[in-house]
């Protein structure tokens, strides 16, 4: 290893990756996951690896510590402290992991062994100065000390099992375990993605503080540009397994040099203002092998020219520390800068529509308790919530996990039966769907529809898209003769070719599936659609497409929308009024802009303060209220 004094950028990097190529062997031959990935990491710095799903970012991290799944191989050069990691085997590799490079995974719910106490996860491999195993008492003391370091002051947590802790607490234990052997480098793979925003902020701030205390280098892998820019010194943008751009975080944010980075930045809904339309990138992320002989972004790039498809463009240094893999980088520099500046300029809030005479949906003092009357475990999900949605209006329902927002949506659709209160939809009492006459129930079904969160299970894998869409078409009007044409028109309305009717869901990308789900909701020509986190599982570039599509449909057909989401930036873009839900109770409501700009309830203030921003200040700002688990 090089001397400890070598701390500057010019020094030999701690970790150096050159021309990394990752391939998976499959039945039909080899499939490329990533190629030509280079990265350098010096002591104490934070490097962000940003990419959408399928960009190869997680596999790159796994390759660095030799943890690739079986059947996946890496080639190229990975040097850590002068050693060739790809050449290491067995025990040497084990020594590298944990002791020198720590790894932190995304999912706090599966990352810890459910049968091991939290303390044991942390001290499992710790040895005393003499190399002997620590005694029982020392181990516990060490575990408690380490937990305190990650912000858990309660020593009882060391003896708790993972299932007894919340997601945020588990992620903290995960951090403590990853740092137990004082690694020089921590690789965090989407460490906060599965967490609520308030918890996410606390975890990221803690990671940042720990990194500073220990002088540790951090590789942060994320799909969230805002998180990457606020946490990292330098960022590499990965797309379809290749690095498209690299540079200092601030510079990349202000002045992107690759059309893809620009597209990503623009399609991220801004949290502090409303834009007329999100500039989405069309299409979806290609498989690396399909674009191996060209610029991988060429199929989706609006500036594509013949030279872009002539060969894979190299990553060219631009002199100021930044590099871009765009062959037209110099020609496009001005245009990209112009677009970036344009997007930064604020636009006026959309005026709130005047209230209609009678609301389309009125919910009064709704409550829902899970568990039967006699049962010991009765979980209240909603407590006296009242809200209304007028015809053609777009309303947001915001809250973190456990706030009851999804339960409310399901009650509206008759998927759950409320325990108390009343729901009135279009003049029909919809509190108990089962008690309604078939005629009224049919009328409700044609009035209100839902789009679900997960694009992968929202469509029946065994049925074709056409069969899935034909059903609601016939439910609207059983006399429709030409179902095929009706299905084709529906698909075209959501921006898909009519030929997709013959396909099964597996042949569609996530965004395309969500379009089909929207088409299904539209098929009965409803007057209102409930969108339950309809875009939160999608990549940023695709999310913008779907948001624009929903907005367009709402405008053209005058359909009211209830957006159930945790994402304040999304709410800002698409809704006129917003309700904030906290632990089953309504804490604040009002015009979206006003609520988000001047939140009055402490919980709303905490939510607004925790929403990621690209500047570093949001991480340092104290939470408005101490989050439940901070």
């Amino acid at each position, binding site marked *: 290893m090089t001397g400890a004094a070598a701390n500057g950028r010019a020094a030999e990097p701690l970790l150096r990756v050159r021309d990394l190529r990752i391939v998976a062997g499959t039945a039909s031959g080899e499939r490329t996951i990533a190629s030509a990935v280079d990265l350098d990491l010096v002591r104490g710095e934070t490097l962000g690896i940003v990419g959408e799903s399928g960009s190869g970012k997680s596999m790159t991290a796994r390759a660095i510590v030799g943890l690739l799944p079986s059947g996946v191989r890496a*080639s190229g050069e990975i040097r850590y402290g002068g050693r060739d990691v790809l050449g290491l085997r067995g025990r040497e590799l084990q020594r590298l992991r944990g002791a020198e490079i720590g790894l932190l995974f995304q999912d706090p719910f599966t990352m810890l062994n459910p049968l091991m106490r939290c303390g044991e996860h942390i001290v499992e491999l710790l040895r005393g100065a003499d190399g002997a195993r620590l005694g029982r008492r020392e181990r516990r003391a060490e575990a408690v000390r380490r937990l305190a370091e990650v912000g858990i002051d309660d020593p009882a947590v060391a003896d708790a099992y993972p299932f007894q802790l919340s997601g945020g607490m588990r992620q903290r234990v995960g951090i403590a375990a990853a740092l137990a052997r004082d690694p020089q480098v921590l690789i965090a793979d989407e460490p906060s993605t599965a967490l609520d925003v308030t918890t996410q902020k606390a975890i990221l701030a803690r990671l940042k503080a720990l990194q500073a205390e220990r002088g540790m280098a951090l590789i942060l892998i994320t799909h969230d540009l805002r998180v990457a820019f606020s946490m990292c010194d330098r960022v590499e943008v990965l797309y379809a397994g290749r690095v498209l751009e690299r540079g200092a975080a601030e510079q990349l944010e202000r002045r992107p040099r690759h059309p893809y980075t620009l597209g990503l930045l623009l399609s991220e809904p801004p949290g502090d203002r409303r834009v007329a339309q999100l500039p989405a990138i069309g299409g979806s992320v290609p498989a690396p092998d399909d674009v191996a002989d060209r610029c991988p972004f060429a199929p989706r790039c609006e500036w594509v020219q013949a030279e872009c498809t002539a060969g894979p463009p190299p990553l060219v240094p631009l002199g100021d520390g930044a590099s871009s893999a765009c062959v037209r980088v110099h020609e496009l520099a001005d245009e990209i800068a112009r677009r970036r500046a344009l997007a930064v300029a604020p636009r006026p809030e959309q005026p709130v529509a005047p209230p209609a005479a009678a609301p389309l949906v009125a919910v009064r003092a709704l409550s829902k308790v899970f568990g039967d009357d006699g049962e010991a475990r009765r979980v209240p999900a909603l407590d006296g919530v009242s809200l209304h949605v007028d015809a053609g209006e777009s309303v947001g329902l915001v809250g973190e996990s456990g706030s009851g927002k999804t339960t409310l949506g399901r009650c509206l659709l008759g998927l759950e039966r409320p325990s108390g209160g009343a729901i009135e939809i279009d003049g029909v009492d919809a509190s108990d769907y089962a008690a309604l006459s078939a005629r009224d129930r049919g009328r409700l079904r044609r009035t209100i529809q839902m789009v679900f969160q997960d694009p992968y299970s929202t469509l029946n894998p*065994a*049925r074709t898209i056409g069969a899935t869409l034909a059903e609601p078409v016939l439910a609207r009007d059983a006399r429709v003769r030409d179902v095929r044409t009706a299905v084709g028109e529906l698909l075209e309305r959501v921006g898909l070719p009519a030929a997709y009717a013959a396909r099964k869901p597996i042949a569609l990308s996530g965004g395309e599936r969500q379009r089909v789900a929207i088409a299904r909701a539209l098929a009965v020509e409803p007057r209102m659609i409930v969108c339950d986190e309809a875009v939160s599982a999608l990549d940023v570039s695709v999310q913008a497409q779907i948001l624009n599509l929903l907005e367009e449909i709402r405008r053209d057909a005058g359909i009211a929308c209830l957006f159930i989401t945790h994402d304040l930036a999304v709410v800002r873009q698409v809704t006129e009024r917003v309700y904030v839900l906290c632990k089953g109770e309504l804490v604040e409501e009002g015009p979206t802009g006003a609520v988000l700009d001047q939140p009055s309830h402490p919980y709303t203030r905490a939510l607004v303060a925790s929403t990621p921003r690209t500047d570093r200040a949001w991480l340092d700002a104290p939470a408005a209220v101490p989050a439940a688990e901070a």
Partner: protein
Amino acid sequence: MSATAVTASGRPARRARRRPSPLVLAAAVVMGLVLCCALLGEVLAPHDPDAQQLLVGLQTPSFAHPLGTDDSGRDMLSRLIVGARAAVVGPALIALGSGLVGTLVGVSAGYLGGWRDAVIMRAVDLLYALPPLLVAIVLIGVLGGGYTVAIAILMLLSAPADTRIMRGATLEQRARPYVDAARTVGVPPRRIMFRHIWPNLLPLLAANAFLTFAYSLVALSALSFLGLGADPGAPDWGRMLSDNLPLLQDNPAAVLAPGIALVLTAMAMNLLGDWAYERLADRGRAR
């Protein structure tokens, strides 16, 4: 430092393909033979399986009778070939019947839930608690034996296992958003159960049918062995096994051949069942 390319990991790139393993191929060959015999038994058999040669009696294997004859002089090979029909038809009926009942009852119980589910599943638990072979022996003893009765009883007693499996799988599917979506569109429950959920259960159902087949083959043969299944004198592997047991010293082939045929067929069905499940589940994902 010059960038030297180092290739990692000497592990071969090729993983296990989806091409069937030699074992599965062997199982397919065995089942193919058994099915051929079941379909074309009389044509393939070198002799009339029921033709007795009482004057000649028992013969050891020879060129004319590769497996010898039993003590009535009936050609063992021919009986073995023709016996394949009983070995296929009975278990196939049981597998189909119990699969059908299990699907209807299990999917309904899982989807409807509530008291219907409770009633159905307690009844299933009750049936499940009974040892099938023992019950079959007692019932056939009371009702008077016969191949058909044995099939009906085994069908009834295999259904609870299928019901449980189908119910469990239905519960899993029921929680998926596509089911919720169908409900919000107003699709009636019966259509959701059998047009939406059921196709997703097919791989499981098919694989399970193979396993039920293998189990029923052994159970039916055991009943025949005990004289409670196939009629006396009928070419049935279990019956042949028990009829020829006294000949073990004189013509071992007459006893071993039907036994080996039974074991091979049951094993082949199990292997094919596993393989079919993997294939169908993969196809479900890929289609």
